[in-house]
């Protein structure tokens, strides 16, 4: 009963729903300027990623077992899945708050200035 178009629009739809793997991967792909397919390849995903993209991100209090459940259900490598999720979390943490980015840039600039002063 698999319907390719329906699955495609499900994949696209869930990309905008926070809390879903589809959303996590879509954001990661955007930030890293790669295609979703590239990330899916990285996960070792099969032809149809619908199951994976429609999964919700693992719950904090049952992270390991949720990852295992998702990996088994969607047919992906659990270690790679964790790596991608962690990568997305890091990127989200920095990209979602402009202040943090500004702060980091400011700190980096100050360090550079201090280094220059020490050199002179």
């Amino acid at each position, binding site marked *: 009963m698999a319907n390719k178009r329906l699955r495609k629009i499900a994949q696209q739809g869930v990309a905008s729903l926070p809390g879903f793997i589809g959303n996590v991967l879509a954001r990661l792909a955007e930030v890293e300027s790669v295609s979703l397919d590239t990330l899916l390849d990285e996960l070792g995903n099969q032809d149809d990623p619908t199951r994976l993209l429609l*999964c919700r991100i693992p719950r904090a209090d049952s992270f390991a077992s949720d990852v295992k459940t998702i990996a088994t259900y969607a047919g992906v490598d659990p270690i790679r899945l964790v790596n991608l999720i962690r990568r997305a979390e890091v990127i989200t943490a920095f990209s979602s708050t402009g202040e943090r980015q500004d702060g980091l840039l400011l700190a980096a600039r100050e360090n550079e200035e201090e280094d220059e002063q020490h050199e002179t």
Partner: protein
Amino acid sequence: MDRDEQRALHEQYLSGHPTVAAVIFEKIIEPLVVVLARQYPEIPHDEIEDLVMASFLHYLEAPSSYDPHGRSLSNYFMMDVGGDLKNAFGSARRRHEVSIDALIEKSMNNHVELRLLARNNNQEDFTEQIVNDEYHRQLTSIVLEALPNPTDQAVLALLLQGVRDTGEYADILCITDLPVEERRSEVKRNLDRIKKVLRRLAPQVRMGFDGE
């Protein structure tokens, strides 16, 4: 998948279970599109898919919009999409009365006083009737509650259209890979089961509507 199983899926979804949305998609949403496409052959398939998907995504975002103590999850989606389909289709169609008991009787020689209205060409149209008419809303509700499984509803839709080709039923039941004899046997088993449900339903329908 019966009503309790669907309720369990909903509860799992509320609890944050990681894979249940995908299960709902495969077990309920995909079969629902098949059911609606058969009931609304005039509406472009893409449009039906878009409407069903919008309903599904809305549910994923706001699962509390579904009351698990009311209808089954599959019926919730069907009702939700029904209004949109009605708008998409318009209300300019003539409708003809047809009795499904004639269809049932023909195949199992058993009279069932269950009547549904159908539009032209004997195409059953549950959802529009739900919206348009209280009688049909109640009648449809009874039928759909008795057959909450979307696959069963798809089989029923075929049955009501008088489809006799085993292949079409096998396609809906996802058993096209089985050997021919096994496939026939499985189709027959499912049809018998659904007819049995309809037979059991007949007194309820009489009580609900004939006694008015």
